[in-house]
């Protein structure tokens, strides 16, 4: 896989997370609970369900990222090279490259009765944490720090890939939530 410059990659990921935060705060945070809980016209997830789904993944990955970053040595390694599997996951998640619809893994299907304000607050909190980890990543080796994926601890991916696919996944479902909002005419 093509090597990239670590700092440029992290800056670009920070910009994406910033956009996600701004979108959730301006577009979703102040909506009434009813709007957040409304399923989309085609029967798809509500805004709250989209974000709750993301929170489930965030829960696993951010915990692992924090732990492994804290344990790791500083390393000025300026290059990051995706693994084949890491890049595959990212492309799969990215709404611009991954056009397939997926059936969600059983334990990542969002619940029916959600507290939408809590879900949004949790998402915002996770993204703020993620900003912090991306910044810490600037002085770490994104190739050698490895994170187990959520469905099995036996597969571990490079930190640089995990950052990318988590953020691509967030992008995917935030767009979905935005389509829901637009369909409501809000």
């Amino acid at each position, binding site marked *: 896989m093509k090597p990239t410059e670590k700092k440029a990659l992290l800056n670009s990921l920070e910009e994406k997370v910033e956009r996600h935060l701004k979108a959730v705060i301006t577009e979703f*945070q*102040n909506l009434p609970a009813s709007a957040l809980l409304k399923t989309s016209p085609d029967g798809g997830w509500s805004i709250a369900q989209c974000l709750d789904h993301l929170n489930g993944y965030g829960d696993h990955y951010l915990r692992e990222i924090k732990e492994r970053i804290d344990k790791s040595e500083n390393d000025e390694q300026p290059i990051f090279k995706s693994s084949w599997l890491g890049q595959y996951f990212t492309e799969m998640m990215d709404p611009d490259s991954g056009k397939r619809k997926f059936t969600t893994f059983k334990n990542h299907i969002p619940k029916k009765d959600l507290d939408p304000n809590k879900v949004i*607050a949790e998402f915002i909190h996770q993204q*703020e944490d993620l900003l912090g980890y991306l910044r810490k990543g600037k002085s770490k080796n994104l190739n050698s720090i490895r994170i187990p994926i959520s469905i099995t601890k036996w597969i571990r991916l490079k930190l640089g890939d995990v950052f990318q696919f988590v953020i691509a996944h967030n992008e995917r479902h935030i767009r979905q939530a935005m389509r829901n909002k637009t369909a409501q005419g809000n």
Partner: protein
Amino acid sequence: MVDVSVSILLLRNLTNSIYPLPEKDWISFSSIWKPFEAKRKETITASGQVEKFLYFVANGVQRVFYQGDEQHEATLVFTYAPSFGGVLDSFLLQLPSRYFYETLTPSTFLRTTSEEVQQLMSESQAIQRLIQIGINHSLAGLMERMTELQCFSSEEKFKKLMTRSPHILQLVPHKYLANYIGIDATNFSKLINSVKI
């Protein structure tokens, strides 16, 4: 982000509203400010550090807050354009700050140092007057807030915040607003849903 010349203009409007400086004093005053930028959730001043800078906020929202342990977090004030920022007591006393100053959104500032401000104050009575009146207003604001914290209901505090800073709901996560009002996030959500603005 905001252009430096626009920031200087905003600064001039602010100082004019506090104490209009004669032209030559304005020229000295405006010369000590340098541009500064920070991203969301960056710590500008940490507790324990001496506040070296006086900030002028040109864009974005920030907060001064106290962080003890998990249970003890207090948002003292939000700063946003056009106003001064930084940990003011630490800046004036040049003692270690008890508080943190952080950005809550991407932010653009001008900033100057304690030494430069002191220098100008010793040279110009008008600048001294400006700083003094600015501090007096800050003090008045703090006393007003102390009163609110003690005897206003959550709903009244929320309405006061919306009057002071109507745009803040659209810019800042609710948890900081809840903390500023002194209620937990769940009650804040209930409050927002029940209060018609």
